[in-house]
């Protein structure tokens, strides 16, 4: 199953990181707050509201446009797919710089960007309905 996911109510976030941990369990079978595709950002103090960052599934994704190797490809339903074999060798990570939201981060192990695969676990584990999500038809 794949989902359309949107960060609809970041102001509802209590900073429980349930989305972050769900993401790392899904992507890498780890518990991790680094290799993830959804981020809980603390703005200098826990006093300030959290910011939640996740892929917006752009129709014209700048990350893919920035990739000189064609490793990131725009998908018809929005968002991107990664062909890891084409990604090797790049040192600039223009894709990561290109996303002005900061939704893309680098997997230090494989030296490739971490791509959301729309599993929906972040939204499912959120206890405060920060995310809106629905199953994709195709």
């Amino acid at each position, binding site marked *: 199953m794949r989902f359309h996911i949107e960060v609809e109510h970041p102001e509802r976030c*209590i*900073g*429980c*990181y*349930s989305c*972050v*941990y769900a993401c*790392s*369990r899904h992507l*890498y*079978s*780890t*518990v*991790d*707050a*680094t*290799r993830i595709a959804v981020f*809980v*950002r*603390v703005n*200098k*103090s*826990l*006093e300030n*509201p959290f910011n939640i960052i996740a892929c917006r599934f752009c129709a014209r994704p700048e990350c893919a446009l920035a990739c000189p190797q064609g490793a990131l490809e725009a998908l018809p339903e929005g968002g991107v797919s990664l062909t890891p074999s084409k990604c090797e060798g790049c040192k600039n990570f223009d894709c990561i710089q290109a996303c002005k939201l*900061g939704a893309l*981060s680098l997997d230090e192990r494989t030296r490739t960007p971490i791509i959301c695969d729309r599993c929906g676990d972040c939204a499912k*584990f959120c*206890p*405060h309905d920060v995310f809106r999500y629905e199953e994709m038809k195709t």
Partner: protein
Amino acid sequence: MSPRLSRVVRINLAEKAGHIQERPELFNAYLGGAGVASKLLEEECPSRVDPFSPEAPIIFAVGPFTGLLPSMVKTVAMFKSPLTGNLGESHCGGHFATALRFAGFGAIVVKGAADTSSLVTIEDSGVRVEAASSLWGLSPLQVEKSIRSLNQQGMESVASIGIAGENGVYYSGLITDRYHHFGRLGLGAIMGSKKLKAIRVHGTGEVLLERPTEFKDFYEEIHRRVVQTEEMRKYHDLGTSINVMMLNEMGALPAKNFTQSRFDKAEGISGERFLEALLERKISCPGCPVGCIHLGGLRTGFSPEHELGRREAFEELELVPYNYEPIFALGSNLGIGDASSVLRLIGQCERLGMDAIMTGSVLAWLTEAVEKDAIPRQEIGDLKPRWGDAHTYSQIVENIALMKNQFYKRLALGTSGAAEKYGGRDFAVSIAKNSPAGYATGYGFVVGTLVGARHSHLSNMGYSIDQKAVKSNLSLELIAEKIADEEDWLYTYYSLVGCYFARGVYDEETIIKALDLIGLPKTGKELRDLGNEIFQRLYRFKIREGFNLAKEEIPKRMTEIETPYGRLDPRRLREMVQHYIRFRERQGLHLKREDEALAELLSTTAET
């Protein structure tokens, strides 16, 4: 990294250096948290050391499920308490535990003292000790805002003491991540004596799941129980402040220095009132979907020349965390029935880095002492405390943190320390030198706080056992035994390290399954034995450092206040303690009895 912990960060502040030590056997045998900390304390703390000596260690430990399972979010600290002169143990939430784990560590040992204000930084790559004079004198919030990174990866935590800790107030705490506390027994003062202003922990590592499919199913089940079931509903909704009205109706809400167990203005400081008038946000510890930290909005006008006649538009909003204990301590126990005044006092304790329960206890004792003319007038000065006068209380709190003069320095010793100097012991509400939490529930609470290794209501749930005992007519002997069993089991749980609020979710069967999933199989008996072993180790430490349960007095005030059992009978309280001592001795823990205590007293008198 493996889900099994093994590494200890060792820091020597005098040498401005730290190194990493591999101690897998420690974590295999004692899991983590209270188990590992108690062992490290035993190894590191010299006998009868002065709490403020550089040789006195500070230990922090996290557990095997830190970051891995819901609500396993706490860090246990152990140290020598300046307040009790004995075991210091305090648990704290926030990002600290998870950040330490993601940095690859299970525990920290801090020794020595720096010659100037210092900052310790712990990262995946190791540990640094740096001079940080520019941080000295700042509030924990200012420190957090100054040293937390922008746009950090992984998990980061900032823990800092306030001015009260710098000045050595015996009940100052360590504040982590703005809203969480290592409170109660004076860790702040110990950090201050070592000139250790703050600790920043930043971890970017990962924990590899060895049986991911099973683990994911298991996680989902626990998550569901924490989020959706009745077991934890109270903490999601009003939070523990729900207790104000519940205890008031039961006749167990202490008011005005424990002279009353019902407060006529309870509604004004109820959880419902806080929700309606002040609640702005809730936040959580990372890895806990509950969000039990309730933040109330404190509105303060800017300086008059900037108000431009529209005061409401130019107010600054400060968010202050509240829960039941500070509401009782700085509310009903001081006769304050107005939620925003209580929140203001809590906010002040936050900024100064003082324990709210003890601060309230000292103020309550002082108010009664002044009423009874127990303190020479010239000592008190202009600030005369009166029940309900939040403004004067606030000024006194400030003066205590600053240790403004001899009088305030004595108040900085805590309730029993101040009463030793000035008299008024009959109304000093202090159990084994700690101030009891807000429960006039009866025998279980008083005895539980007295016998608990850290003299906390969270030691053994005495207050909760009371509420059941009154209904079902449990014998006092049975209550004493239940207190012992609860404390043992909680020490197992505090080795994992789970949040007290989630204890109902993690029953024995659940913990056995969880340990098996990370390759640390234990039987139920092994787990129960472990809790008992930790308790015994801590008690041997306490006895070595001079604690004698048989000689500890139960404050007179505790037998004067009405409880759901009626007034507590001093003779029956003593019998309960004696029964508890015999129960523990049958388990092989040698606690001194009254006759031995007397013999010891006679022999020391003979020597002098």
